[in-house]
């Protein structure tokens, strides 16, 4: 007798480290990230019917997580405008991480990206999803995903001071995002 629940349990637990990393990188708040992961697991478990057998479970889970995140974000924004300020102060990196400066700088720079940019860069650059899969997950066109990834890379290069003679046009929107902090972005 196969017990699908056992398999599913194992598969979901196996996906937790990636879901947490994604959620954490996206929202920058470990507590909220874990709540997101929890919501994702519950939704996945209770909506298993809507998962197409043979398709990519991880992609499906990431889709649930990002949809949960963005719909919460919209709700929160309507409810508490003031929260933006409090959240912006929290965007700094965790203090007790013994990582070298490069990585700290990187995290800081990453925190200034827009949510749209963070999302696609994580999916494609960190998780290794294809552009097509990332498009499916985010509900955006493949071309949009590609351009977001590129913009994210350009923005990171710029704020890390990595650019090599390349002259990128200054981007006022980008500076606006830096000022507003990561939850203030649209």
């Amino acid at each position, binding site marked *: 007798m196969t017990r699908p*629940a*056992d398999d599913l*349990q194992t598969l*979901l*637990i196996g996906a*937790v*480290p*990636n879901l*947490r*990393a994604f959620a*954490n*990188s996206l929202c920058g708040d470990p507590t909220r990230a*874990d709540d997101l*992961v*929890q919501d994702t*697991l*519950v939704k996945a*478990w*209770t909506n298993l019917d809507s998962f197409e057998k043979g398709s990519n479970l991880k992609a499906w889970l990431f889709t649930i997580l990002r949809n949960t995140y963005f719909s919460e974000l919209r709700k929160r924004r309507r409810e508490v405008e003031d929260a933006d300020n409090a959240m912006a102060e929290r965007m700094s990196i965790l203090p007790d*991480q013994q*990582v070298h400066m*490069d*990585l700290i700088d*990187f*995290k800081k720079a*990453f925190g200034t990206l827009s949510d*749209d940019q963070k999302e696609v*860069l*994580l999916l494609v*650059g*960190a*998780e290794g999803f294809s552009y*097509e899969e990332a*498009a499916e997950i985010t509900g*955006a*066109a*493949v*071309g*949009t995903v590609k*351009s*977001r990834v*590129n*913009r994210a*890379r*350009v923005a*990171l*290069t710029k704020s*890390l001071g*990595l*650019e*090599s003679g*390349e002259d*990128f*046009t200054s981007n006022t929107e980008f500076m606006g995002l830096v000022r507003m902090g990561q939850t203030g972005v649209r």
Partner: protein
Amino acid sequence: MGAGSASKQGESTTIQPPLPMELQGQIGQRLREAYNELISEPVPDRFVQLLQQLKTRESQNSDEGQGSDP
């Protein structure tokens, strides 16, 4: 589908030239480094317990009348 439908989001009116491969590589490497650090964190018990609860609840539902003791 894929071609040129970026205008849906109204965000790519200007064409940004792609980064040189070398820079893409540097960015990618740091991104994965930061990300892998997060992935390697141990899974908190709450998630193991949560899935156990979901499974238990499900098997109780499917057993329906089969009274299980508290």
